[in-house]
C-alpha cells in the first residue's frame, strides 16, 4: 500500500496542473504599495538632504547662517523639486501607458516633454515672463507646448478607434527631433544668458534656488496629480480593453480628453522647472508593475510616490557620483532609461506587432 489515496476523483497518478496563486485583492495591494513606497520616499528625501558636496550637519544649520542659507536655499528646494517632478513624470508615464495601451509610452519618449521644453524656450526667447493670473508665463507656454505635442502624436497614431503602437512611438521620435531642432534654432538667435537657461530645459536639471519656485509649482502640480489619480479607474478599464470599457460605463472620450490635458499640464510644469528629464515615466511604472501587479488603480498612485523617491535618489547620485562636478539628473535617468526602453521594445516584439 502506498498510504491513503490522495486526489480522490482524479485520474490515477495524475497530478493537477500547477496553478499560480491568485492576485491578492486590489485594496491590499494598494495599501501595501503605498506603505512600502512612502517609507522609500522618506528614506530618499533623508538621504538627498544629507548627502551632497558637503554632508549635512544639523548642528551647523542652527549655529551657522551660511550653512542654514545653503540648506534652505539650495539643498531643500532641490530635493523637493526632485520629488515633485519625479512624481509628475512617473504618474504621467503610468497614465499614458494605460491611455495608449502601450507599455512604452512615456512623456519623454512621446515628445511631450520636448514640446513643453520648446514652449518654455519660446517664452524665454520672446522675453515674455509676466505672470498670467499669477501663473508664470513659462508654465503656460510649457503647458501649451506639451498639449500641442501630445495632440500631434495622438492624431498621427490614431486611426479610427485603434491607436497604432508603432506609429505612436515613431510620431514621438519625430516630435522630439523637431522640437529639439526648433530649440537649437531659437538658442542661436537669443542672447547667451537665455541660451544657457534654455540648455537647462533640454538636458534636465534640478539646480533651483529658493523655495518660492517650489511652492508655485506645487500649488498647481499637486491638485493636477490628484485629478489624474482620480482617473485611475477608467484608465484601468481602458487598459484592460479599450473597446469595451464604454460598455462598463466609462466615458472614454471624456477620460481621454481629461488625461491628455492633465498630463500636458503636469509635464509642462515639470519641464518648466526641471527641463526634459528623460524616461522617469518609463522606469518607475515598470518597476512598480513588476512588484505590485498591473492594476492601474495601484500602478498610478504608486508610481507617483515611487517617482518622487526615484528622482530624489537619481539626483543625489548625480550630485555626488563625480568628485569634481555635479551631473545633470537627466544624464542619469537617460542612461538608465534608454537601455530599459530598448529591452522592453525587444521583449514586446515577441508577443505583439508594434
Amino acid at each position: 500500500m502506498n498510504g491513503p489515496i490522495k486526489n480522490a476523483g482524479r485520474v490515477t497518478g495524475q497530478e493537477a496542473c500547477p496553478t499560480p496563486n491568485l492576485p491578492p485583492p486590489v485594496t491590499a495591494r494598494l495599501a501595501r504599495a503605498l506603505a512600502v513606497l512612502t517609507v522609500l520616499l522618506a528614506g530618499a528625501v533623508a538621504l538627498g538632504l544629507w548627502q551632497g558636496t558637503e554632508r549635512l550637519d544639523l548642528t551647523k544649520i542652527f549655529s551657522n547662517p551660511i550653512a542654514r542659507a545653503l540648506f534652505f536655499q539650495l539643498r531643500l528646494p532641490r530635493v523637493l523639486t526632485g520629488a515633485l517632478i519625479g512624481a509628475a513624470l512617473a504618474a504621467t508615464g503610468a497614465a499614458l501607458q494605460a491611455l495608449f495601451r502601450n507599455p512604452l509610452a512615456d512623456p519623454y519618449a512621446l515628445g511631450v516633454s520636448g514640446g513643453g521644453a520648446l514652449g518654455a524656450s519660446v517664452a524665454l526667447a520672446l522675453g515674455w515672463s509676466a505672470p498670467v493670473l499669477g501663473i508664470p508665463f513659462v508654465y503656460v507656454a510649457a503647458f501649451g507646448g506639451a498639449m500641442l505635442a501630445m495632440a500631434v502624436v495622438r492624431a498621427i497614431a490614431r486611426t479610427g478607434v485603434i491607436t497604432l503602437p508603432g506609429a505612436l512611438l515613431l510620431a514621438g521620435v519625430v516630435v522630439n527631433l523637431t522640437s529639439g531642432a526648433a530649440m537649437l534654432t531659437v538658442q542661436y538667435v537669443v542672447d547667451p544668458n537665455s541660451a544657457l537657461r534654455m540648455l537647462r530645459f533640454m538636458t534636465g536639471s534640478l539646480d533651483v534656488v529658493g523655495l518660492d519656485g517650489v511652492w508655485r509649482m506645487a500649488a498647481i502640480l499637486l491638485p493636477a496629480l490628484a485629478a489624474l489619480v482620480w482617473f485611475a479607474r477608467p484608465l484601468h478599464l481602458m487598459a484592460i480593453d479599450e473597446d469595451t470599457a464604454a460598455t462598463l460605463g466609462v466615458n472614454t472620450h471624456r477620460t481621454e480628453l481629461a488625461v491628455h490635458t492633465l498630463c500636458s499640464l503636469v509635464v509642462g510644469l515639470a519641464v518648466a522647472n526641471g527641463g526634459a528629464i528623460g524616461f522617469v515615466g518609463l522606469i518607475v511604472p515598470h518597476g512598480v508593475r513588476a512588484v505590485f501587479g498591473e492594476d492601474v488603480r495601484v500602478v498610478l498612485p504608486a508610481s507617483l510616490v515611487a517617482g518622487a523617491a526615484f528622482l530624489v535618489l537619481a539626483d543625489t547620485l548625480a550630485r555626488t557620483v563625480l568628485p569634481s562636478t555635479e551631473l545633470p539628473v537627466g544624464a542619469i535617468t537617460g542612461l538608465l532609461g534608454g537601455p530599459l526602453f530598448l529591452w522592453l521594445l525587444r521583449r514586446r516584439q515577441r508577443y505583439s506587432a508594434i
Partner: protein
Amino acid sequence: MAWFETRGLDYRYGQGPLVVRGVSFGLERGRLMAVIGANGSGKSTLLRMMAGLLRPLGGEMRLDGRALAAMPARARAREIAYVPQAALPVFPFAALEVVLSGRSPHLGAFGFEGPRDREKALEALEAIGAAHLAARRVTDLSGGERQMVVLARALAQEPRLLLLDEPSAALDLKHRAGLVRALARLRDERGLTAILVTHDLGMVGSTFDRVLAMRCGEVAAEDAPDRVLETALLARIYDEPNVRAGRIDGRAVVWVEA
C-alpha cells in the same frame, strides 16, 4: 410592447452605404436570440449599437420601456453586458482581474471590488468551466481561453441583457457546449436575456428561442428556430443554393451539400 425592442435602426460607417437598415424587432425577457446572416450582413454592427458602442443614425432602442439613448452609461452598464470577439491583450493582467473589471458598474464612485465581488467573479469563471484560468496571465492564454475570460467578465457584470459577438468561434467542442449550457441555465434560473451573433447554426436549433436572420442590413426573418432554419430561407440569407435544413429528433439541423 416587448421587454427589449428596437425600432427602425439605421447605421452607416462614414459616408458609406447603410449597413443596417430599418431594423425592428422585439424580444421578451428570459429568451435567447441568435442573430444569423452572411458576413457583412450587419449583424455585428447591430450588436454594437445595442451595446452602446455605436450611436444609431436613426431609430431607437428600448429596454423595459426605457429608451437606451437616454440612459446614463453606468446605469446602462448594469443592465447590458457585451462580449466582443476577443482582442489581443497588451498588459499581462491576471484573468481574475479582467473578470473583476465586470463588477465596475456596480461599485461606488471611489469603490474598489470587495470580497463579495471577488466571489462573483470566481463564480462567473466557474459557471463556464474556466475556474482553472483565474490566476493565469491573459497574455499567456490561447484565443479560446481569452474568449472564456471575457465571457466570464460579462457574466460577473450580472446584466439583464447579454450581447455576444460570435463567442463560440474560438471555442472547442467542450467549451462551446459549456457556453450554451451556461446561457440556458442563466435564462432558466435568473431570467437572463441574451442576443448572440453566430455562424454556428448547429448551436442555434437546439437551445435558442428566437432567431433573427439578417440579409444586406435588413431583417430577413425573425421567428422560432424551426421556422427560420428552412432550406429555402437559408439559401436566400446566405446566397448559397446547396444549403440544406432537416430535422433530427425534432431538432433543426443544417448542412451544405458538396
